[in-house]
């Protein structure tokens, strides 16, 4: 006596045609959620608004100095003191001779502090600055 297993008539394959699409979707998801080289900004600042603003064409040349509401300053990933700016920026300038320093200064700051930073930058020969501002509509 022969027994025969009962089988379903339809095929039981998982359709794989959409697999690349799923992979693309995943790729997309990660592309969208990734932020490029994010620096942790440790200070709280609000940029001033201006109308006659320019874009910085070459992002590679830009290096940032943040100044927060509480007058703390940040360069790269760490908080710095005013006296340290000169040596840090001088080292940066030696790597990139035509460095642009983008000053992201809180709009409530005093000019005294800004002038002090500018003097440090001048001593470090970082002469191209950009006062970061958002566009006023």
């Amino acid at each position, binding site marked *: 006596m022969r027994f025969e297993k009962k089988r379903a008539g339809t095929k039981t394959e998982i359709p794989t045609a959409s697999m690349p699409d799923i992979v693309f979707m995943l790729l997309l998801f990660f592309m969208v959620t990734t932020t490029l080289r994010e620096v942790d900004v440790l200070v709280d600042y609000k940029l001033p608004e201006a109308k006659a603003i320019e874009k910085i064409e070459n992002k590679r040349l830009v290096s940032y100095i943040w100044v927060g509401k509480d007058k703390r300053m940040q360069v790269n990933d760490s908080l710095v003191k005013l006296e340290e700016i000169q040596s840090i920026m001088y080292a940066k300038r030696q790597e990139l001779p035509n460095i642009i320093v983008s000053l992201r200064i809180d709009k409530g700051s005093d*000019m005294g502090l800004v002038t002090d930073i500018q*003097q440090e930058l001048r001593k470090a020969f970082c002469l191209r600055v950009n006062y970061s501002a958002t566009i006023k509509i």
Partner: protein
Amino acid sequence: MIKKRKIPPAEIPTASMADIAFLLLLFFLVATVIDVDTGIGLTLPEYVEEIEEVQVSKERMAAILINENGDVLVDGAPTSVFKIKDNLKPRILSKIELPNNKKLIVSVKTDRRTNYNIYIQALDQVKEAYFEVRDEYANAQHGNRFNDLRIEQQDEIKEKVPIIISIAEPEAVQK
């Protein structure tokens, strides 16, 4: 014997899958904003130990002074921050045809306690005045806005209307 009817294999149509993925890709491509750095550019003067005084004739200078309360003086006359542009524009315009050593110098000087925002507003006004003059001059010469001109034409106008902004040397603070 009864012949069993063949059941066709069940399939999800996958041909349009790629289109859906492309649509999504397109949407995110269009909707993404890579944040660009914008701001007011300026070149600081080199640091010198001893400041040498250079005499500049009075009509070449536009001295903007801002005090700690945000009051503005342009060449000694009190004015408002938002009027700096209108004040400077005719003066820049009148000096277009003059040689380079006679063009207007805008000097911005602030107190140590002046608010940074007001300083930026003043600088913005100065820049705007220059940009408007450049645009007007470009329109008169080439019939187009400054940004739409060719590089050589832009350079020519930059030569005619150079932006000279002097940030005054800070004075020693009395403590």
